[in-house]
């Protein structure tokens, strides 16, 4: 079996990114849309860590930590909005929130 190169990780991260994008674009349930965003952020983290390893530095890993901190903040705010929305409109489906649409 050939040894693992940077390319393997980049292709894997690209595939995970596309899976996450697909989830964001096609699902109706907002909880699962937020989970898909987590998948996208994880794909970015894989790339950061891989290039950090490739160049022998640690900067990529530091930025991965910042991305994780952002993901935490995003999840907390997103789920807070979701709870407020469920209380006001009684739905968690993204395309039923269409007040600004005509």
């Amino acid at each position, binding site marked *: 079996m050939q040894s693992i190169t940077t390319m393997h990780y980049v292709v894997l991260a690209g595939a995970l990114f596309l899976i996450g994008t697909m989830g964001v674009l*096609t699902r*109706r349930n907002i*909880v699962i849309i937020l*989970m898909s965003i987590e998948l996208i952020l994880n794909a970015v983290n894989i790339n950061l860590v891989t290039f950090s390893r490739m160049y022998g530095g640690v900067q990529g890993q530091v930025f991965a930590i910042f991305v*994780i901190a952002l993901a935490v903040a995003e*999840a*907390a*705010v997103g*789920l807070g909005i979701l709870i*407020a929305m469920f209380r006001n409109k009684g739905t968690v489906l993204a395309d039923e929130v269409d007040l600004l649409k005509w």
Partner: protein
Amino acid sequence: MFFYIFALLTLGGGILTITRRNAVHSAIALIVSLLGVAGLYLLQQAEFLFAVQIVLYIGGIMVLFLFVIMLVNLDEAAKQAQFNGAWAVCLACLVGIGAEVWWFVSRSSSMAAWHKPLASVAAAVKGSGNTERIADSLFSEYLLPFEVASVLLLVAVVGSVFMARKESPQE
């Protein structure tokens, strides 16, 4: 060898996450996917990120997700159509993003380095431990972003508490 196992966990978990009808099943599939990513960190000698991934993502964010799933009644949503039918838009976006990434990757000037086995560059990483090096970098070179991130987290905590609270009667 381990790379393929973890890659399978990651991608399989990801696909299950976006296809399950029940949100709890999605959350469990996402945990599998995040565990696969944690394994990939371990393979790349990022031990600190491995611990952070398990503690923060799987222990923190996923518990938050499961809490919200229990708090919000999803039974009604599970009975309805799960996909919004925007397949053409989705396909166009996927093809666009895929082509863009492929184009940039194929034009990269460091292409030769991309095809070198990663095990051969591991020698350069020797020295002090991974956590120590991250801490050195985080608290000297990236001190300002670190502090900004702490303010951001404070804003997120206050904001989410404010949004999720019940309306107070005296207003």
